[in-house]
């Protein structure tokens, strides 16, 4: 299908993460996307955390754990958090800093989608994805405001959890490892595949 005009959809970008057809540096603010390895993440498929009902169950679980935390001596009731940087390498054409959700093959990574942070099969944190912000996918000047971007979301998880060896699930998609990004002061980061 072809849409007319200057804003023809660029369907070929949707295959970038799968076939690693990018030549040259791609960045996403320091995110190294060049080591992507297809859809291997699906090998570790877990039980489906479905839509709103899944989110509701997770929400109840979080509320209960919040109550327990309060009972165990939380000072001001507000738990300290740390941010996990989620990179959705969809290479969609946007203006950097535009609000975004995952595009094409990554449409499942959208605001309000349920996520879990896991380690050794245990759920360390859970929540819903926030809206993302577009970042340049290529660290070169393409001479246009609208250019290939990645969609970056910031996930707040409790500061108390240890993210080494942690993995991220979005619904039934994943797991993908959460690793420190040395280009961004070792901020914990998950890059979807």
């Amino acid at each position, binding site marked *: 299908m072809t*849409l007319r005009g200057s804003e*023809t959809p660029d369907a070929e970008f949707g295959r970038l993460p799968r076939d690693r057809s990018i030549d040259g540096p791609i960045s996403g603010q320091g995110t190294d996307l060049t080591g992507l390895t297809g859809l291997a993440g699906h090998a570790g498929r877990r039980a489906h955390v479905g839509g709103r009902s899944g989110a509701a169950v997770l929400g109840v679980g979080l509320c209960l754990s919040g109550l327990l935390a309060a009972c165990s001596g939380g000072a001001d009731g507000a738990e300290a958090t740390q941010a996990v940087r989620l990179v959705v390498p969809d290479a969609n054409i946007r203006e950097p800093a535009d609000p975004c959700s995952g*595009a094409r093959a990554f449409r499942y990574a959208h605001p309000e989608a349920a996520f879990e942070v896991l380690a050794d099969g245990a759920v360390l944190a859970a929540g819903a994805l926030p*809206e993302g912000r577009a970042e340049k996918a290529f660290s070169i000047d393409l001479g246009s405001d609208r250019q290939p971007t990645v969609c970056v979301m910031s996930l707040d998880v409790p500061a108390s959890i240890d993210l080494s060896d942690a993995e991220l699930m979005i619904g039934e998609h994943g797991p993908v490892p959460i690793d420190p990004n040395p280009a961004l002061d070792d901020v914990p980061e998950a890059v979807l595949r």
Partner: protein
Amino acid sequence: MRASLSALRGIMAAGLVVTSLAGCSEPTRGRLPGPVPSGVEFRPAPDDAPPAPLLTLELTDGTTLDLAEQWDERPVVLVFFETWCTRCEVQQAPINDVVEEYEDAVLFVGVANLSEPAEVAAYVEDNDITYPVAVDPSGDATLRYAVAEPPLVALVGKDGSLLRGWPEGVEGDELSTAIRDLAVR
């Protein structure tokens, strides 16, 4: 005394009438256009305009909408959205103005893919959407119209030619102008 009681009754009756009328003015949701108004003419599509992908959508009221039947009668504007899409929401009010402007001359249809039906119903209310809306969990419509990321707006001419698409949605003024230039005289 009797006169003042009568006047009071009159005021109360008037109040009831006003209240009833206010109730009647609730906007209709999921409205399909009426007959094309007399005097409205449609522009022929350019020779190189491709055919729009065929779609049969299940609307939120449970009815089925065959778009090909619709564009036999008038142009169709497809508004692809999701309930969490802030850009969709920002663009909605100006699109509503265009819906009003073209009333029975153009059919507008909203299409969501991954949004929950209950959330879609709330979104329709919150954003005062009067045109029919479909939830397409299969993603068929999204694929056929190459919706990489919501919003996307597509204009289909009468006769089913795809006239224009806006992958990041469109401002109301631009949409109105495009309909005028490409679809409706």
